């Protein structure tokens, strides 16, 4: 048997069985699970946005109070006195 014939034979073998009956509560179960997935996803996204917002606020407050871009007064040079 060559390849197309064998493929056709296997295909027939797979298709000869009658399809299994679809359970009647399938749609309800799918919507329940899918809805839960959707809600969870939405909650996670909201949580991540909130975390990002909180981080931005914290950073802004920290930067405004500490002012890390201002050069600190020098501490290495000794004060010039008695010159």
């Amino acid at each position: 048997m060559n390849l197309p014939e064998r493929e056709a034979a296997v295909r027939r073998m797979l298709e000869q069985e009658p399809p299994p009956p679809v359970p009647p509560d399938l749609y309800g179960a799918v919507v329940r699970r899918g809805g839960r997935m959707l809600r969870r996803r939405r909650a996670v996204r909201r949580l991540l946005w909130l975390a990002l917002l909180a981080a931005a606020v914290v950073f802004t407050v920290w930067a405004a109070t500490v002012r890390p871009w201002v050069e600190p007064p020098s501490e290495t040079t000794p004060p010039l006195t008695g010159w």
Partner: protein
Amino acid sequence: MRERRASQGIRRARDFESFVAGAAGRLLHTATLLTAEPRDANPRARRLLTLALAHTYASWDRLHGEDPYDSARRQLAVRFQRAAWHQYGGFGRRRASPDHGLARLTPQERLILVLRLYEGIAEEQAAALLGLPAERVRAICARAMATLLHPPRDPVPARMEVAPS
């Protein structure tokens, strides 16, 4: 705004319901072939299908014109691959009870055979879906076909391909 959203929700539910009504039979058959369960006692296949369709439901708004059947089938294949990996401690292991024709194959062989021949997915697409090289998909499919078409005790099915018939 709220009204528009509600009507969108209704349309979405109707679309999804008609999709499930049309596709569930064939997808359940595919899932049952994958799990190699008898047609009237297929809890694993049902669970697999429920999870795959639930995922399609959850990402329904983000399909953007993609065929939902493709999406559900991809989910089915990927979930079966993952479940088989965890369940049998390896994707290539053979099942202990060879009761059914397809049960003689490994989960991977079944997956590739069903995707290629029952679902009619091209070799390259199946390879991309499963993360395998296309040659490997072809080899596994040939091996699975040889196992299915010849008696299980057939020692070297590869000889069939070498000998000129």
